[in-house]
């Protein structure tokens, strides 16, 4: 039996077949967990946010309209909101999730279990970027979303996304290779 598309499954959920959401959970929860993780560098919070996100999917399932774009852009839009609310709730500096005063050692502590030095360092450096830049890199690079998709998620033009990615990468490069 051919696999149903995300959109068809979400329509079933919207019609009341709530248990079908398990399929979408299977398809998306790891990616969305990582989305939150790269933004927060906090494993427990990222699991909570992922859970919270799927709760919102249930709550707001009536607002899902396949004619307005893919399921993926719909759920990522919601994921951004969940993260935004988290920042507000935590009363963290809006532009920067991790405390600017946090040392590299402290960030490294939150990343125990990272065996690859390179990934660890990347995560530390990423945490030092402003949240907008971090988010655009997570979406376009870690998550591998297409510029068109990010454009629909963030509701800005593809050209503007390209500029943002370029600037964020430049900044990341400066920080990453600064002390090496």
């Amino acid at each position: 039996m051919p696999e149903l598309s995300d959109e068809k499954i979400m329509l079933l959920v919207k019609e009341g077949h709530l248990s079908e959401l398990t399929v979408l959970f299977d398809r998306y929860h790891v990616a969305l967990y990582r989305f939150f993780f790269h933004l927060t560098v906090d494993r427990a919070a990222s699991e909570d946010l992922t859970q919270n996100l799927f709760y919102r999917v249930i709550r707001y399932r009536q607002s899902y309209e396949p004619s307005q774009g893919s399921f993926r852009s719909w759920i990522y839009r919601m994921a951004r909101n969940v993260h935004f609310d988290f920042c507000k709730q935590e009363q963290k500096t809006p532009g920067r999730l991790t405390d600017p005063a946090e040392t590299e050692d402290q960030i490294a502590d939150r990343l125990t279990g990272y065996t690859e030095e390179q990934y660890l360092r990347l995560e530390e450096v990423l945490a030092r970027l402003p949240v907008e830049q971090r988010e655009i890199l997570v979406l376009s690079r870690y998550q591998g979303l297409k510029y068109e998709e990010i454009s629909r998620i963030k509701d800005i033009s593809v050209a503007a996304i390209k500029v943002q990615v370029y600037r964020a990468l430049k900044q990341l490069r400066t920080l990453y290779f600064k002390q090496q």
Partner: protein
Amino acid sequence: MNCKEVQAAMIEYLDGALHPPAAAQIKAHIDACSECRREAEELQVLLTAMKNNNQEMPSPALRENFNTMLQSELNMEAMANILQDRGIAEKPRARVVPLSKAAIAGRVAAAIILVAGGVAIGMAIRSAPDTGNTAEIAKLRTEVNKMEKEMKEKDMLSLIDDESASQRIKAVSYAEQMANPDQQVIDALFNSLNHDKNVNVRLAALYSLSRFADRRPVRDSLVSSLGIQTEPIIQVVLINLLAEKRETKAIAPIKEIIINKKTLKEVKDAAQKGLKEL
């Protein structure tokens, strides 16, 4: 091409997203310009690392929590359906699949069967309305037939203590298919109804027991159970069942539920309605 132009197109070049002639121009510049070459190399390191960094995994708790949340949502929907059907709730809490004229317990069972994630429950299938999800139903039906052949009473009694909730649901649901279960099976079902920690197992046990509710000892135990249940959906299903059976012994525990401060308003409404029928 100058350095500025090259750097502006660098990411698309590294992504392999440029047309071959444009890519060739950039490559020629990079080969000749050490500054741009360094930028290309360093960016490539970052892009590759971000693309390949797939180490981070959520703990198994994430899935467990998701399943629990989904179960409780389904239970709430099932209760909303029951209340709506009994004319108690004014409006449905949310738009749910219309469940035609299936028996009330059948609706609950339909909720359980979905929760159990494909675990077959015979009762739900027989009374499940056509939700359009016929492939799923057919699959479950096959599983049930298989299950019926495989499972013996003693298997049911051992499975009823299984660690996995879906296995326990299977066990208590299997009892519903027995033509004449002995006292040991009935006791096991009541034990599940009154003590299982998973609400879906309790519901499934209740549904199985409801088939034998015309037996006096079963009826009496159901009345006793009403006095100890605190989960709203179980209370509502039990009240409905006993009211349907015109069980006058249920009047006292139903009154208790009504005066109990902790009882949910929806349950009180169902209790009032049940009381009128008695």
